[in-house]
Structures are given as structure tokens and as C-alpha cells.
């Protein structure tokens, strides 16, 4: 059956975001994208 596009809510907004995309969009600068180093959250190598 045809479905009106507005009659569903896409929680991904039409984009298949990977973990590092999600973190990057939040402005996080985690080590290798999603690794928290000892006591330091916002640090890359």
C-alpha cells in the first residue's frame, strides 16, 4: 500500500549515522572517535 511520507517518523532523519558520525556531530573529539582515555574525555592522540 502507498504510505504518505509524513505519516512516519524517521528517528535517523534519513541518514545512516555511524558511531563516529554521531560523536562528531556533537563536537566530541574522542580518541579514535569513541574511546575515552584515562580520565580524559576530550583528547585525541
Amino acid at each position, binding site marked *: 500500500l502507498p504510505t504518505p511520507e509524513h505519516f512516519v*517518523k524517521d528517528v535517523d532523519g534519513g541518514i545512516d549515522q555511524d558511531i563516529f558520525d554521531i560523536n562528531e556531530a556533537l563536537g566530541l573529539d574522542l580518541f579514535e572517535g569513541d*574511546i575515552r582515555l584515562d580520565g580524559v574525555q576530550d583528547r585525541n592522540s
Partner: protein
Amino acid sequence: IIGENYRWPHTIPYVLEDSLEMNAKGVILNAFERYRLKTCIDFKPWTGEANFISVFKGSGCWSSIGNKRVGNQSLSIGENCDRIATIQHEFLHALGFWHEQSRSDRDDYVNIIWDRIQSGKENNFNIYDDQVSDTLNVPYDYTSVMHYSKTAFRNGTEPTIVTRIPDFMDVIGQRMDFSDSDLLKLNRLYNCSSSLSFMDSCNFELENVCGMIQGSGDSADWQRLSQVPSGPESDHSNMGQCAGAGFFMHFNSSAVSTGAMAVLESRTLYPKRGFQCLQFYLYNSGSGSDQLNIYIREYSAGSENGTVTLVEEIKDIPTGSWQLYHVPLKVANKFRVLFGGVRGAGASLGGLSIDDINLSETRCPHHIWRIRNFTQLMGSLDGALYSPPFYSPKGYAFQISLTLSNPTNAGIYFHLISGANDDQLEWPCPWQQATMTLLDQNPDIRQRMSNQRSVTTDPLLTDDDGSYFWDRPSKVGQEALFPNGTQFRRGKGRGTSAFITHERLKSRDFIKGDDVYILLTVEDISHLNTTAPQPVPTNGTPTTSTSTAPTPGLCVNFACENDGVCTVWNGKAECRCPSGDDWWYMGARCEKRGSTRDTIVITASSTAAVFAVMLVVTLLSVYCTRRRYRQKTGPSTAEVPVENEHVF
């Protein structure tokens, strides 16, 4: 990561913090079930252990590598991170795994295109040498859930990772489930030899038929065959793709009279959790009234031959194709599963066949949506494919829609629909979690990489027009028709347009025999919304966390002091008291505090007190003895001659 200090115990204590979204809590518990099925790693709610993983909704999805031994080790499942494979990925980090492409031999398998990487992000493509990271003798794995996808940290539209074997370009970055190599590495790292919930898998390829035996006292036998003239033409495991292989078990109902039965018994099985899910494929080429009965032979004290119980009668088995069935079991003692083929009335040219049996101590899906002739639907479907209507255990009617018109991705959505129980139900619908699983039909449940997404009904979620999103479909839904012409109303769907790419959908065993299965479970997760105080962690920082186990009614009027957690044990409410390395709470309600310092103080003071008492007793004894002696010798001195007298 190399270093035993980074390892967790096989059962990892965890806390799901209040900050987590409800959907995330349910998905985390589902991810734990995948660990329990495929690895020896288990999870338990934290009860005061020195180190534990605290899952919370932070900014983004992240974890540390390995057990940092810091007491409360945080793992963030932020917004949009509530996907099962993302959670599996983050927990693999916590268990000690880096990303796959940071292996020392990475450059043998992928090319990193450095000038396509965003400036300043090059360090995300580091390599660790074999002094830091161990590959555990497992080959480089393009299919790892720990591998980046080709677009990672790109500055434009071109891929930053190019696989040396081009076929793997769209394979890297899967977020479906553990790959075989992920499991091999995890099981090697943690010396796993079994899992909590896996019991048996059988595709009948070996002549020992997985230790199954023919039943006694029945009127026919099951045969191990690779084809039957009247069907099936091939087994389900290989679908006839392997010459000389591909076996299944067949009950030839055409050779026996009506009412005859053939029983096939599994080997003896030993349950751990008390609930099981039996799944298998069934093919009917016999009479439409042939049926398959599932029995359990349960052994308990006093029943040497076991007690046989009928669990399910499978009737009206469609003819001409393999069909998936699930049977939930609830067995606590040693048992066997019995497959009883029964010859029905009417003409039969063939019989019943079974293949790809899996038994695990997991929950069965509530419903199965089988989509036949799937390949012709792909790309040609303009709109959505709707599932038949189903009911949740609470009574909510729902439907799933699958969208295939997008050239790249398939989408999936969960809709509430008007149903027979709507007057008795709570609206807007509170905290029902719908889990939709595209089944990877690999014959072995442990090797399946099924694609799963969950949606949870938040009763306070509003739509753009201000109405409640999960309100009664007859109020907020649109009119729709079932194929038979019955009118109903369908609520708005919630889900994703990026459920799976068409490329991945065509891979593995998602489509088998041109059939696709979507497994559906809708469960009430309201209990995850209750906040229970948790013990004070060892670092002394109090946290308030959500108990992952339902808080039963017995605990309502049973308060635990000092952040003790109420649990129900043997039908009684009990307090689990917090403890640390050198302190603990005790008593029926955790009202008393103890510590090793207290013990030392008690021991020292007891010793001192005993010494003081003994000293006083000794002094008194000496004093009394001397006094008595003096009294004795005083007045009679003149009468007794002094010679030959003993003196103390």
C-alpha cells in the same frame, strides 16, 4: 589490549543510570542477551563489587578500553546510540578491544587515503604494535563490528578506507551483530568454552544427527535424507547449493496409516535458566492434516524414564516450502525435546521434514512476519509493505511497515493500530518496546548476524500538531484497510528509513528460499522506568541508578537503609547491602555498618578488656589469699609450735 589487568570477570556488574532513555535501557538488555548467547560473558546488576560498568546517557557513544579498575567505569549510550550493535561495539571496547583497523597488520588489508581525512583527524587511524595489541591469531576481519565504515572522518565524499579486496568496500562498518571473528577473539581473550544460553544447534549434516535418537513405542521412524520426490527438493541449511551435502530429517507420512506417529528425540539437555526457545524449519509435502507435536521428556527425581509433556501441536502446516517455527519451553530439569510427526487424514504423497534446529535459553519472539517472493519486491515496491496485524502481550494491536522503494536503504516502522482491546488499554500507550529483527537465516544461531532495531512508546511524546504520538489509533490514526476489506485505523509509524542497505540485505542469509523473516517482540518495559537507589560505590561517590530488574510488589513496603537494594529471594523481600573493599553494611535492612577498622578496634579492645579483667581477678585472688592467711595465722600463733610449720 595486552595486559591481564584490563580483563573483567566473566560476569560483569553493571548499573543502568536514570539518565538513560527507556529505549536504550531495553536495547542494552537485549545486547547483554547476545553476549550471553554467543560468549561466556554475562552481566549482573551491581551489588557493591569493587569495579563495575555504569551505563549512562552522556554526550555521544563512547567507552574506555578494558577494565580500568577505577570502581565506577562509565560507558555512554547517548542520543542515537540506542542500537544493539552500537552497544555491543562499546561493550567490546570496555572488554578490551580496539577498532579492527588499528591492528598492526592493518596496511596489508586496507589503504588509508590520508588526503581524504579531515585535517587534524589523522590520528584516528593509528596502528598499535603487537606489544600493545594482540590479534589473538585471528585474521584481519572486514566483517567486524569493531571496524570503521569506509566514510570515517572523510573531508569530502570519497572513502577514507579502501579495502584491498574491493568486494569488502561495503562490508566494512557493519552494525548488525558480532562477526565470527569478533566472537573468536572475545572467546579466546576470556578463555570461553561455553555460553550461558546456547544449548544446541543441528542442521543434520553429520550422520550422527546431533545425537538424536528414534523414539521407542512409535509406529514409524524419521529418515535422514537430502531430498524427497514430493518435496523438499533440498535441505534448508544449504538450499541445495552444496552437491552431496544438505540433509534434513523426514517423516514419510505417505507410508503409514492415519494416526501413526514417528518420534525423534534430541540428546539429553541440561538447562541453566529455566526458559528456552526452540526454533526450526518445517516442510510439509504430505497431507494438509499431518501435524507435528512438540513434547518435552523431563527427568526429575523419581522419574527414571522422564515425564513426557505435550508442549505444542503444529497444525495447518503450509505445503511446498520451508517455514520457520518458534516454540517457547519452560524446563528446569534435565530434558529431551521430542519431535512427533503425526499422520493426518487425507491423501499424502510425502510427509514432514525438519531442518536447522536451534535451542537456546532465550526468549522466543512473540510474532514472525514471513515475506515470501522477496527479491521481486526489492526496488519495485512504491510505498510500504505492511505486516499482518499482531497483538502484544498487553493487548495492544500493532503493525510493521517495511519500505523498499529507496534505492539504497530499506526502512522499517512500528505502528499502533486500532484493536479489540483498545477500551481496556491505557492511552497514550506507555513504554511498550517493539523489537524488529531481520533474521539472518544462518543454520547456526551463533553465527547469525541479524539486523535489529527497537522503538519504545513514550506516552508523553507529542507530534508536530501537539497530539500524543502514541495515543489511541482510533483518535490519532488514519483509516486503512486490511486485504479482506476490514476497516481499521493506523497510528503514525516510528522507526528508521536506514534500517539496512539493500546491499547488506542481499548478503548473508537474510533472503533464503526467497523468504525474509522479520521477528517481532513487543514487551512492556515500564519496570525499567522505576528508580531504585544503588549502593555507594567504592570511590565514595553516591549515585542514584535505575534498577534493571523489576521492582516487585514485595519491595514496596520494604525499605532498605543506607542505599541497600531490595530484591526478592525465595518469595521474600531482602536487602542487598552495599559493601566496599574494607567496609560493609549488614542487618535485615542494612542498618548496621561494619568495617575492617571496626574489627581491629573490637579485637584490640576485647583483648585489652580480657587482660584487664584477668589482672583484676589475679590481684583480688592474691589479696584475698594473703588476707585469709594472715587471719589464720594471727590469733593461734601462741598455741602452735613454730617448728616444722610450712609457710607459703
